[in-house]
């Protein structure tokens, strides 16, 4: 079991796997996301209360969902960085942090634009919105800290500690709508219950969540490959790989 774990940590092995999976991730992601968005925008029925403005949900929920799951993945990678000193885990954290930042920003932005016609305000300091803003700062902090420290290994450790400290924010985001009185409504998708919308609304939503997940996978692969190339360009396997490539 540990052997497999260490193999997983090998940049060369990852490079090969990523190259093989990337076209599939890109195709699946683009198709699923397009299907979800087109269905949601043009074919799903409008909501009885909010009318058509609820159609923002088909990008608001996927970005918010990804913003949180990327952070959870980064936290796992941070544990691996601190305990096993695995280089690939640090490559992952460094590569996906900007993606998480953009998705968090998108979920805040789409939420604000959705809030204006429905709630009557762009922003309100309720627990859900504030904890999501903290997530944005955590992503920003991780990126800034990594840039501020020149030494690769100390940067990796410092960022891992910051990411781990910030992970307590995730359950707060998740349960804020249940623990406190918030303006934000509870989640539409729950693990234990049926979604609180009919199938012709939740199926496109699920499609766009899955699609964005695949596109995130593709983004993580490209960005990690770039990072590996920059770090390992003096090794023989990178040299051989690149010289063998056409063009």
């Amino acid at each position, binding site marked *: 079991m540990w052997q497999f774990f260490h193999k997983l940590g090998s940049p060369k092995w990852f490079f090969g796997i990523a190259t093989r999976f990337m076209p599939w991730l890109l195709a699946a992601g683009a198709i699923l996301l397009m299907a979800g968005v087109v269905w949601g925008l043009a074919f799903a029925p409008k909501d009885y209360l909010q009318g058509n403005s609820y159609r923002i949900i088909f990008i608001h929920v996927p970005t918010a969902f990804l913003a949180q799951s990327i952070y959870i993945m980064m936290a796992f990678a941070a544990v691996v960085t601190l305990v096993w000193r695995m280089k690939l885990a640090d490559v992952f954290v460094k590569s996906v942090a900007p993606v998480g930042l953009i998705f968090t920003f998108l979920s805040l932005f789409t939420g604000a634009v959705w809030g204006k*016609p429905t709630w009557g305000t762009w922003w309100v300091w309720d627990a859900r919105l504030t904890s999501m803003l903290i997530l944005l700062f955590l992503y920003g902090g991780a990126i800034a800290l990594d840039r501020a420290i020149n030494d690769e290994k100390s940067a990796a450790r410092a960022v891992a500690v910051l990411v781990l400290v910030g992970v307590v924010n995730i359950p707060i985001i998740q349960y804020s709508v249940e623990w406190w009185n918030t303006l934000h409504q509870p989640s539409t998708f729950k693990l234990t219950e049926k979604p609180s919308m009919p199938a012709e609304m939740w199926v496109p939503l699920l499609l766009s969540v899955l699609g964005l997940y695949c596109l995130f996978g593709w*983004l993580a692969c490209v960005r990690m490959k770039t990072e590996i190339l920059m770090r390992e360009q003096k090794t023989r396997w990178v040299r051989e790989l*690149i010289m063998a490539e056409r063009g």
Partner: protein
Amino acid sequence: MAFESFSAFIAMEGHGPYVWTCYAVFAVLLIGLMVQSYRHHRAVTSACKRRYQQQKSTVGNRPKPAATFTRVEVSQD
């Protein structure tokens, strides 16, 4: 189709500006991030390649030096 005409689809009963702003910003940022990531990858790959080819031509057919300055991984445990 939930809308009767294309103009109704654009207008979204008055909510159009909100919905389309969201989708536009989402598309621009997502596609921008993907294009930027891909271009950066291409740039780094070609930079590496250029460097290797340069090294090859300058070193030529001389035998490899006995010692190099490549990073050596030392296990900490």
